[in-house]
């Protein structure tokens, strides 16, 4: 399956392990990635706040370059949630607002480019892996199932919301990555915070707000008994991993929940070495959690035993029944 690929700034740098692990598994899942030549930054959530039309023109250049390059595929995929949403949103808003589309194309023309809204299908990498590659094809490549590993699937915001092209089963409680991780042999813990916000740029401009959000997410995963949080976005990974250290300093806590990309876990299950998957570059080390992966599937009796949902020490008082 051939795909146009927009890596985005983060995947080149802060999320390098995401890119490395994707490149390590692409053959196994039968995906051929063709990078959009000379792509530019998507503008994240910042450019849009300063200039409206230029923000869409900035994204428009990427769409125009991708559509010019498109041969044998009309799917443009991105691994970063913000990159994905910016590409998808500009495409959608150009489709729905002809006045905006005309302005974007007028601007693109100054650079000898044009983009016909709707001519590309913009998809997040997780969407392609779950819905095009498919759970069965993924499962067929598993040589080292992640038995014994308990994972909290964390989707964050912008992949599932606003979901301009209705790609997901639910915008607040999606299940695609849950199924993917189970296909790898891992146990998926109940994680109701799966689409709550990681704080985004608040870690820089309003750390107190961000630390509160990060604490809630890390505490939720920890209380659910997760060995690791699994993410699909560079910003979420950075905030939950690197800023977990800062959050601990802020609150005087000692959480240590590693945060990995779903592609890294796919790579592990496919038998690739942690080093090729960029594992070890996280701030909260994942090695202790990964040491729990066992050769044997968990005993039937153990899985059958209904586990009581752990109660947060600082949660709201709840009536106890029986």
């Amino acid at each position, binding site marked *: 399956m051939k795909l146009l690929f927009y890596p985005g700034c983060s995947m080149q740098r802060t999320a390098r392990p995401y890119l490395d692990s994707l490149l390590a598994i692409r053959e196994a899942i039968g995906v051929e990635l063709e990078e959009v030549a000379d792509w530019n930054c998507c503008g994240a959530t*910042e450019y849009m706040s300063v200039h409206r*039309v230029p923000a869409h023109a900035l994204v428009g250049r990427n769409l125009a370059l991708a559509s010019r390059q498109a041969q044998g595929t009309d799917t443009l995929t991105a691994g970063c949630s913000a990159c994905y949403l910016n590409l998808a949103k500009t495409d959608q808003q150009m489709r729905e607002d002809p006045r905006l589309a005309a302005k974007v194309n007028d601007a693109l023309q100054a650079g000898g480019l044009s983009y016909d809204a709707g001519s590309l299908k913009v998809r997040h990498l997780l969407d392609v892996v779950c819905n095009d590659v498919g759970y069965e094809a993924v499962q067929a490549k598993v040589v080292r199932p992640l038995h014994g590993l308990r994972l909290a699937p964390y989707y964050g915001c912008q992949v599932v*919301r606003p979901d301009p092209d209705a790609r997901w089963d639910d915008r607040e409680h999606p299940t695609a990555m849950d199924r993917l991780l189970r296909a790898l042999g891992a146990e998926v813990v109940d994680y109701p915070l799966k689409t709550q916000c990681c704080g985004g740029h608040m870690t820089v401009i309003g750390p107190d707000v961000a630390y509160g959000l990060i604490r809630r997410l890390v505490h939720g995963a920890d209380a659910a008994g997760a060995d690791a949080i699994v993410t699909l976005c560079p910003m979420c990974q950075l905030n939950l991993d690197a800023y977990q250290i800062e959050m601990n300093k802020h609150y005087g806590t000692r959480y240590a929940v590693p945060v990995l990309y779903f592609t890294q876990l796919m790579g592990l299950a496919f038998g690739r070495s942690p080093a090729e998957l960029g594992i070890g570059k996280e701030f909260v080390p994942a090695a202790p959690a990964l040491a729990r992966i066992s050769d044997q599937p968990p005993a039937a009796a153990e899985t059958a035993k209904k586990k009581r949902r752990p109660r947060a020490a600082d949660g709201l008082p709840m009536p106890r029944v029986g």
Partner: protein
Amino acid sequence: MSAVPSPSAADREPECSAFLREVMDATPGDSRLNMCIQCGTCGGSCPAGTEMDHTPRRLFAMIRSGLRDAVLRSNTPWYCVSCYFCTVRCPQQIHITDVMYTLKGMAIGAKLYRDNSPPDFSQTFVDYVEHYGRSFELGLATRFNLKHHPLSLPAMAPMGLGMLKRGRMELVPHRIEGMAQLTRILDRAKALEATP
């Protein structure tokens, strides 16, 4: 659940203050902002709502009342984290996150914000994109923090060094080849932004 009916433009007009019309016109597509029923689902869904001086609900009532200065001075849009919870939960399907982007842009244009650090962060990010075509984390974090949180720099140094050590940060920005082309596109787009 049936779709919320969309009244004709004429039906909506009496409710529109000039400022409400201005905000709606500056937002791509149909923001449906004039359809707000003041239910408060937005504020109740907002992860940063407790930090806002006005909840989104109240801000929308203020927009409808034409309180331009008070709205553009509000910290509300600057605390928006773009999580889109309010947008997908709004029973009137108002494009709330998009409206917040519009308000940020208008506040920058009118220079009406009390705390200049969030607009400065956005502007610094934009500057890097307009110089190199790519973002540059090290420069962004250093330039922003030097200006706004100089005392926090020593505390943040371990993270910066940790990023470098792990090969997760570069010391120099990457410039795209088509920088001249991108500049022409953005210049033209900025000229078009002012036109109706």
